[in-house]
């Protein structure tokens, strides 16, 4: 490691301290470090003995990265990872800064990095992952990627950079045969759910449609890890014939598939050292990544947070609700620039919405009107809306429900008095 790296670490860390004192600003230190030593990230990462696992896909990246890190830690490895949401180059550099020694060495056996689809091709070339785990391709952020096909091509490029193994979701229309569509050879393993669970899910797995070319049907590949049963915030995974039970962050087949993907990846990374029962103990001790099936305790009431990052995540989270929520709050702002997709969502698991806020509130109120779902109040002032919602009488179930986009989730956590940690770690 050169002087430049040390300088980058020193300055980056100073900026990090300053940014934290100010509150937030998680990507800024990384941006500064990358400016001083442009190769800072790749040099540091390249020195990690067991290399990099890259995790990407439309939904579930943070949850799965969290699960995989826990499983590998349970097997005794020291894991470096980027906390939820910090999946752009600057965010990853910031995470490195928080753990790196001044000489540029990270104390880690392996790095598990969540990578943003958009930056995936660039980051993957930089990070040279040995293993790539791809979760799903769903309709996501069309304002950013314009069409799902572009995401497919970006993730193909990420998959191609895997030097050792590639882990794919066999129940995804585009991933089921991605190994055959890309050049080069590497070990390939699949994960998925039993046909009964897939057909039993109201809206399936929300995989983006695939048009044109003749291709293998989703579900037709042999899986190393299969979800065979689903419970209330739990699932059974079949791993090499062994049935194990795992705890999930919340109800839902999508969370079970995330767990299956994490287990299949751990199995590939660890080889003969992999112990299926350690998946159970690792996931049992996990706290949720916030905003993903998280329960917040506020003044003795629990608030369930449902994130609407994109159509698939909202639909799958709504499908996972056991009953129609008693009290519902929605907040959506320009973090979701084009909410057209709400017309593709089946909202029938909501009987009503009490309060809607955020700059897109009126657009949501129109949508709910057409869906025949009664709306209480619309108030663009987020603080006032939150206050009004909290003031509603205590629900019989003891649980209030908030449906939020990512930006509103961050803001409302703060309003509710939850501290935000750098890069999005657990408060």
């Amino acid at each position, binding site marked *: 490691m050169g002087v430049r790296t040390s300088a980058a670490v020193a300055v980056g860390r100073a900026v990090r301290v300053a940014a934290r004192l100010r509150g937030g600003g998680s990507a800024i230190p990384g941006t500064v470090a990358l400016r001083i030593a442009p190769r800072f990230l790749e040099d540091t990462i390249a020195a990690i003995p067991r290399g990099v696992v890259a995790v990407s896909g439309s939904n579930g990246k943070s949850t799965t990265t969290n699960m995989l890190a826990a499983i590998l830690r349970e097997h005794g490895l020291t894991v470096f990872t980027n906390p939820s949401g910090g999946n752009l180059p600057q965010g990853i550099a910031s995470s490195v800064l928080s753990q790196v020694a001044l000489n540029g060495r990270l104390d880690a056996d392996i790095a598990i990095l969540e990578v943003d689809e958009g930056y995936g091709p660039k980051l993957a070339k930089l990070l040279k992952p040995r293993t790539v785990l791809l979760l799903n391709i769903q*309709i996501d952020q*069309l*304002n*950013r990627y*314009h*069409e*799902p*096909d572009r995401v497919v091509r970006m993730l193909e490029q990420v998959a191609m950079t895997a030097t050792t193994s590639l882990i794919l979701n066999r129940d995804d229309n585009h991933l089921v045969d991605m190994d055959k569509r890309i050049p080069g050879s590497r070990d390939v393993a699949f994960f998925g759910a039993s046909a009964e669970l897939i057909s039993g899910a109201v809206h399936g797995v929300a995989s983006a*449609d695939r*048009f*044109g070319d003749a291709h293998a049907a989703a579900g037709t590949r042999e899986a190393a890890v299969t979800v065979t049963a689903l419970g209330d915030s739990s699932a059974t995974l079949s791993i090499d014939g062994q049935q194990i039970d795992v705890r999930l962050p919340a109800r839902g087949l999508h969370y079970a598939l995330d767990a299956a993907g994490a287990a299949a990846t751990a199995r590939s990374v660890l080889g003969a050292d992999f112990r299926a029962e350690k998946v159970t103990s690792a996931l049992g001790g996990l706290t949720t990544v916030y905003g993903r099936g998280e329960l917040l305790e506020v003044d003795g009431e629990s608030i369930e947070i449902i994130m609407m990052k994109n159509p698939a995540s909202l639909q799958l989270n709504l499908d996972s609700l056991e009953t129609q929520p008693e009290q519902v709050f929605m907040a959506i702002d*320009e973090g979701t*620039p*084009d909410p*057209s*997709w*709400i*017309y*593709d969502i089946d909202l029938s698991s909501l009987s009503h919405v009490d309060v809607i806020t955020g*700059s*897109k509130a*009126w*657009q949501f*109120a*129109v*949508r709910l*009107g*057409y869906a025949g779902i009664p709306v209480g109040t*619309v108030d*663009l002032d987020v603080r006032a809306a939150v206050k009004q919602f909290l003031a509603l009488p205590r629900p019989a179930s003891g649980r209030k429900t908030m449906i939020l986009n990512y930006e509103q989730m961050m803001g409302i956590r703060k309003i509710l008095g939850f501290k935000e940690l750098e890069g999005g770690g657990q408060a």
Partner: protein
Amino acid sequence: MTDLNILHLFPRTLGMNGENGNVDILVHRAEARGLSVNVKRYEDGDSLPAAVDLVFIGSGPVSAQLQTHPYLSVVAPPLRALAAHDVPFLAVGAGFQLLGETVTLADGTVLAGAGVYPVTTTVAGERVVGDFVVSSPVLGTLVGFENRGSYVDIRDAAPIGHVVYGRGNVAATGPGASAGAAAVAASGATAEGTVRVAPDDRVEGYWVGNLVGTHLHGPVLANNPALADWLLTAALARRGETLPAAPPSLAEIDRRASKARDTIAAAPLSE
């Protein structure tokens, strides 16, 4: 009174990003007034229904456009006949392009359109992504979301209205040009195929007789109920019928849509 027959073209391939919501909205607004509605979802290989009062085609990615194109030649003659008989059409994005005369792709390939709309599309220039505000002389302010990487040439035909925010059919140049033009300028795009007009001349879509074509997404009818009612009125007028008055449930939706338009028009954003 017979059913109102809506023909929904290629809902599966051209149904991305809430486009099918336009049909749900038309159905909702007709049924709320006591009309019965019949929707024919036309996919390749189906036969077209004998009675059609209103035609909708939505948007989708280029891959879906390519997927749909081979099936277009079968439906093109009957669609042109419907248009000639003043059946109202609403065509959005990729569907609007396919119902035009030609679509020239980025690699120079020319797709023959259905020839319902006398317009041509060229895939070129910078993609524009952002809020979209259009001022229509007939319907007032229309809002939506613009997300396109192509130019539409409507020649001397009438547009839906002037662009207040966003880009419109072609790019603008010069002082006063707003978001779309700024994006083009920032990218240094003097790419071949870039079509420019003076900022004040930016217009959106095509609206001649009962044919409406646009790149307003949102879906377009969501926050612009006046356009939905205009289409329903035109469909009924052909049969000598009128659109009944809106019940209170629709009035409440329309109040919210008006607030949504105000919110977007007051602070439009783009990438």
